[in-house]
């Protein structure tokens, strides 16, 4: 088998008429939804403790005390499920020269004028940004979160360090919520994307339009030598 540059093991042309392309395997999808669930639960429980006006959200978790102990454990769950995603996806999210062109032509991206954009592999620069922002912010949130985890690490750091940690934690939380909104918005705005994470497949037209190099590589892999 030839080496993959733009695709991942499991990515393949699943059906030919019409063209259907496998983008995410079942395990990856299940893990992605675990990450999504924990992120949303963290968002709701964290926001409850962030603003008095949102404290009522603690009711979703069974009160303030439960919210307080549950939130950090959800953070640990998010960390490990995202770690698996990270290990699977980091290589294809490394920056490529075409990403620079893509960012320079961000106006065409927003207009949906994709013929003016370079051909892309499995991810565009926007998706790569979401990936690396999530990775960095999750590390920042876990590190600062452990520093303020009263129940198990009350004396881990000094009180002045705790003040910085709690500030960093809330800033990183605001940032990750913004990235999360961007991620969800982009997935909905780019029609045909959601099925990649539900059924695991996208249409050939979607792959051609948004990730042509990825599709080309998969199409090339399907060709068999007569001798093979």
């Amino acid at each position, binding site marked *: 088998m030839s080496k993959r540059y733009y695709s991942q093991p499991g990515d393949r042309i699943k059906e030919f008429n019409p063209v259907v392309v496998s983008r995410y395997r079942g395990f990856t999808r299940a893990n992605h939804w675990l990450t999504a669930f924990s992120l949303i639960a963290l968002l709701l429980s964290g926001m409850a*403790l962030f603003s008095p006006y949102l*404290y009522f959200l603690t009711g979703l978790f069974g009160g303030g005390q439960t919210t307080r102990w549950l939130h950090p454990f959800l953070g640990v769950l998010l960390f490990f499920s995202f770690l698996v995603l990270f290990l699977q996806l980091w290589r294809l999210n490394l920056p490529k020269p075409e990403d620079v062109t893509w960012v320079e032509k961000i106006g065409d991206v927003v207009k949906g004028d994709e013929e003016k954009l370079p051909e892309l592999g499995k991810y565009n620069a926007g998706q790569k940004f979401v990936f690396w922002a999530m990775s960095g912010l999750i590390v920042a949130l876990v590190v600062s979160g452990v520093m303020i985890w009263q129940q198990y690490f009350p004396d881990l750091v000094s009180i002045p360090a705790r003040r910085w940690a709690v500030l960093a934690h809330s800033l990183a939380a605001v940032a990750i919520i913004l990235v999360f909104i961007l991620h969800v*918005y982009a997935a909905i705005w780019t029609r045909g994307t959601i099925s990649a994470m539900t059924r695991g497949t996208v249409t050939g037209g*979607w792959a051609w339009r948004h990730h042509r190099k990825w599709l080309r590589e998969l199409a090339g892999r399907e060709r068999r030598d007569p001798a093979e």
Partner: protein
Amino acid sequence: MTTDPNLDSPRTAVSNPPIQPMPVNLGPGDVVRASAMPDLPAPTRELTPVAKLIDVSKCIGCKACQSACAEWNDTHPEIGFNTGSYQNPADLSDQMFTLMRFNEYENPETGDFEWLIRKDGCMHCEDPGCLKACPAPGAIVQYSNGIVDFISDNCIGCGYCVTGCPFDIPRISPTQHVSKKCTLCSDRVAVGQGPACAKACPTQAIVFGTKEDMVTHANARVEDLKSRGYDKAGIYDPQGVGGTHVFYVLQHADKPQLYSNLPADPKISGVVESWKGVTKTVGLAAIGLAAVGSVLHGLLSRGNRVTAEDDREAKELVEPSLPAQDKEA
């Protein structure tokens, strides 16, 4: 002086409590500030501000105040180990709301050895950092008489008060998961009695009354100390936190750090202020705008749709790789 049951708060801790039954005199209508409750209704009346004055120069280190505190609050500090100091237990805890901190000081000016024993505990700040940091509505309240109290039923045990306090006072109970500290015996004050520590103090190094009376008394004490050669004697009532309702007379008021690191100019950390201030306001605004903006734009824009042309191109690209039998079909 006896305690008049008609007064809104006791004027002394020394006298015995009134024998006639009296209503509890600290209620929800006396709360001026409550944590995470920005729209708190105004208090229904204004109580006379009270204060506890701790005259360090009079303290003999007997720990009667600690015993009285544990007795009244029914706390049970763990029996610890001798660490080479009379200070016992080693630190404040959820079971020890007040602690005599012992410092042995050799005065370089006089060559004298001095025992600087400071009774540590909640200072009951006029601007309490714990209350500012607390995320749980009504877990920390401030009464109009100046007492800052933790309401355990509302406390969630997150430890934010520890982060907010400029004096390192609150301690979280590892078993009950609520924050604990000196209440200034709010339950005693509510029924006309002074705090247990002040009542127990044999030298009246701890006295209790209205803040006004206590300041007058403290000034007299400072004058007396100055006449005895303590030129730098003074009152420690830090204005960085708006003044406190527990305050000290210090022999060396110019060097509060001598007293087991009593902060020279305590105030709520700028980090805490920006976390609870600009970060919250700007953060919520940014999140709200992003959420509303993306929903609106999502509803109004057409989205980026795949065209029939894209599908045809994909088919053409994939076509040569079709297995032979599919091609015919």
